[in-house]
């Protein structure tokens, strides 16, 4: 018996993390289901699923003694139960209240994890209770009302049955009675005989109090753990056919105290909506990253072996060749599988938007329909986290500035509701994410005017594409007024910078009156890359293969100069491309002797240029390592890698090189 309360006193904090993770998932599912609920024709499956989400969170919260969360989820559960039993019809206001409750639960969860002021829940508890009462046909007798949910009915005293057990010592019962007698407002607690069918080792009390359940539990917790206490309406007042009031779950450890089963078993039975649980396993990100690191080392070692084997005499090499090529193939397969572990579907990102758009649309008075295409497209977890903020900004922009008010749309012959399409697809070695709206499109004239007003050079002969690129300039906003959503003119600049930092590109396309499309292109993963290594001034540099168009050795005299020798160009098919010496770009010392150069044509953001290098070395997959782990960000360099000979080679940031080279901007098409 003593072991029970001892088990309850076990440090439960080690199990908190599991609860936090599962509760967060449940709250996400809860929100999604609610957003998808058709208020006029609610699906039973959805109602049951929503109920189960709230129920799971309640179970865990009560077990760990998070009474604020338990109380709130209990109130939500009460309402949801009525809905799923068809005792009440759902309404938009109910959904709003439930969504708010979900938000508050998230905030409470956050406070538990990180600390901070937890938000008040009284307002929500009252709102939820009101929804229940509004739906209840006949008003229940007053004492019964008090038993619904957790909040105290001010002024109303309740008769409660309190079961405590098993108590650690016999004296606890007397201690509790004394305590309640001393504390004003605690109520009157008296010992009651055991009820028929009650567990023998529990102690039964009758409590008449004006305090709320959680206050009672708080008071009792001085002598007995909350989890060992059950409160129910005193049997005399309890109507036989009502069973809405569910007592807070008693720790199952009470039953299995002797075997010492860890209390963490408690949340698990309560969690029902985990049909996918059997097919997935929860793994910490650290473990996956460690796998990826080891995989990277394996790739490097295998490359080293291949290189050393290449230096062996023919006989020895032949013996190794078979094994080495097998090794290479297996390493590549293994690497793809390991990288795939970190791939997460875009739906994880897209799912944040329905809720945001619902609130945004209602705040702006616009009507919106969200379409998503390609949610199953996968992206590396690291990129997913970093792309969410920029995407959010783009979506907000579309809603705020792109989609017109219903009246405007109708006047323009469009449907009253605007359509926002989020799409993702794989293309080449990249993932392409698009945010498209059918709003009013970008105003070319206004953008040019704003650019000129900001002191930028914006000739009328600019192509549409170049005008749209102006939007990314810092400080440029064509919003008529600055709303708190967007319009301060810092957003698009930051968006582009963030996307570039990920090794991606962003393009805009728009048609007046028809809509705007933003296209973001990202490498599939940051960790491994196909590269071409080039030699400059005795050092090796790696160019991302995706940025390379072609490479060739220019004929004598093919490289011409402009503007008195300041710029060089070369003719490639019908275009003149600027020539930039990588030697100069890398501040390397000038060559001892002039050697015939090689030109590598690279492309970024619709601009091309020819990089002059000393020699082409080879093409290989490289493991991308971060320079910033131990050093600062170096302009023009996106990372580093370790080559087969163990030396470090810098990976060049081609878009940055293209952008910064003055020659690249000056050449007309």
């Amino acid at each position: 018996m003593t072991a029970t309360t001892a088990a309850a006193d076990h440090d439960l904090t080690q199990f908190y993390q599991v609860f936090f993770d599962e509760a967060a998932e449940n709250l996400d599912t809860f929100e999604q289901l609610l957003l998808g609920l058709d208020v006029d024709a609610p699906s039973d499956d959805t109602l049951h699923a929503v109920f189960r989400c709230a129920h799971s969170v309640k179970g865990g919260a009560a077990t760990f003694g998070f009474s604020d969360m338990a109380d709130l989820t209990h109130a939500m559960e009460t309402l949801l139960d009525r809905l799923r039993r068809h005792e009440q019809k759902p309404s938009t206001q109910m959904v709003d209240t439930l969504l708010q409750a979900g938000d508050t639960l998230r905030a409470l969860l956050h406070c538990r994890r990180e600390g901070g002021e937890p938000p008040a829940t009284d307002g929500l508890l009252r709102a939820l209770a009101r929804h229940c009462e509004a739906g209840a046909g006949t008003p229940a007798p007053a004492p019964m009302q008090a038993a619904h949910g957790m909040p105290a009915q001010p002024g109303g005293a309740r008769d409660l049955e309190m079961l405590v057990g098993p108590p650690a010592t016999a004296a606890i019962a007397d201690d509790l009675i004394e305590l309640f007698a001393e504390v004003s407002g605690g109520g009157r607690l008296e010992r009651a005989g055991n009820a028929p069918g009650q567990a023998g080792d529990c102690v039964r009390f009758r409590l008449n109090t004006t305090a709320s359940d959680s206050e009672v539990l708080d008071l009792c917790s001085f002598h007995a753990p909350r989890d060992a206490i059950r409160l129910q309406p005193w049997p005399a007042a309890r109507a036989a056919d009502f069973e809405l009031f569910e007592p807070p779950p008693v720790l199952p450890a009470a039953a299995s105290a002797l075997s010492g089963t860890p209390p963490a078993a408690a949340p698990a039975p309560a969690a029902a909506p985990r049909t996918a649980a059997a097919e997935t396993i929860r793994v910490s990100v650290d473990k996956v990253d460690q796998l990826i690191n080891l995989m990277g080392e394996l790739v490097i070692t295998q490359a080293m072996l291949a290189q050393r084997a290449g230096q062996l005499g023919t006989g020895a090499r032949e013996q190794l060749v078979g094994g080495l090529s097998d090794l290479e193939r297996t390493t590549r397969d293994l690497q793809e599988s390991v990288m795939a572990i970190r791939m997460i579907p875009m739906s994880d990102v897209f799912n944040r938007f329905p809720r945001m758009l619902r609130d945004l649309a209602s705040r702006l008075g616009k009507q919106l329909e969200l379409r998503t295409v390609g949610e199953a497209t996968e992206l590396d977890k690291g990129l997913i986290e970093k792309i969410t903020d920029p995407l959010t900004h783009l979506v907000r922009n579309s809603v705020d500035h792109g989609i017109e008010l219903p009246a405007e749309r109708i006047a323009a012959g469009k449907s009253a509701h605007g359509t926002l399409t989020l799409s993702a697809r794989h293309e080449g070695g990249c993932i392409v994410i698009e945010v498209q709206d059918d709003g009013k499109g970008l105003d070319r004239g206004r953008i040019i005017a704003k650019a000129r007003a900001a002191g930028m050079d914006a000739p009328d002969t600019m192509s549409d594409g170049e005008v749209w690129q102006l939007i990314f300039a810092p400080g440029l906003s064509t919003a008529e007024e600055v709303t708190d959503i967007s319009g301060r003119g810092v957003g698009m600049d930051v968006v582009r910078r963030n996307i570039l930092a990920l090794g991606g590109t962003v393009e805009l396309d728009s048609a007046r009156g028809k809509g705007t499309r933003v296209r973001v292109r990202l490498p599939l993963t940051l960790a491994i890359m196909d590269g071409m290594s080039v030699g400059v001034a005795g050092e090796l540099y790696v160019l991302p293969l995706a940025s390379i168009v072609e490479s060739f050795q220019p004929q004598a005299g093919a490289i011409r100069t402009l503007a008195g020798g300041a710029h060089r160009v070369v003719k490639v098919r019908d275009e003149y491309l600027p020539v930039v010496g990588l030697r100069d770009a890398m501040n390397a010392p000038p060559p001892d002797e002039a050697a015939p150069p090689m030109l590598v044509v690279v492309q970024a953001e619709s601009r091309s240029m020819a990089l002059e290098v000393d020699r082409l070395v080879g093409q290989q997959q490289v493991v991308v390592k971060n320079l910033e782990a131990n050093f600062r960000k170096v302009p023009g360099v996106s990372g580093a890698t370790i080559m087969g000979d163990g030396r470090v080679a810098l990976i060049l940031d081609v878009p940055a090189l293209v952008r910064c080279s003055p020659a690249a901007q000056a050449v007309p098409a």
Partner: protein
Amino acid sequence: MDMTGEGGRIARDAANRQPRPGEYLAWRVGSEEYGIDIRKVQEIRSYEAPTRIPSAPAHVKGVVNLRGAIVPVVDLRLKLGREAGYTASTVVIVLSVARRVAGVVVDSVSDVVDLAADAIRPPPEVADATGPRFITGVASVGGRMLLLADMDTLLSDTLGVS
């Protein structure tokens, strides 16, 4: 000693990051001998030409591969305004600096000395207020004067620590 005086001294020492008694690795740059807390030292390697980093200052020689990690190499002799030569005996001390790993090139490494608290004195007040802030103490060992160096202070800017 009165309490306010002692309190003031303790506060100043804390602010100056008073070096702790313990073992220090002694190394030389030119004619000066420095000491660094042994707990910051990861390993000692011979100098190999690093991969150059474009547009880095002269004393940042580049980066090297340290068992798979990319580690910057800073030539302390250049940083301290001295001449730097690279011979077979040039040495790189790999240390942990501000939660990063970096290598510093020095002329030579001598020994590990054990410094008791009373052997460590505060650094001499230098007339120039912008004097070497990275020297947090001075120790006497035999006839030697060891300048105790705080690498975080010396290298934070170079390594881009915010």
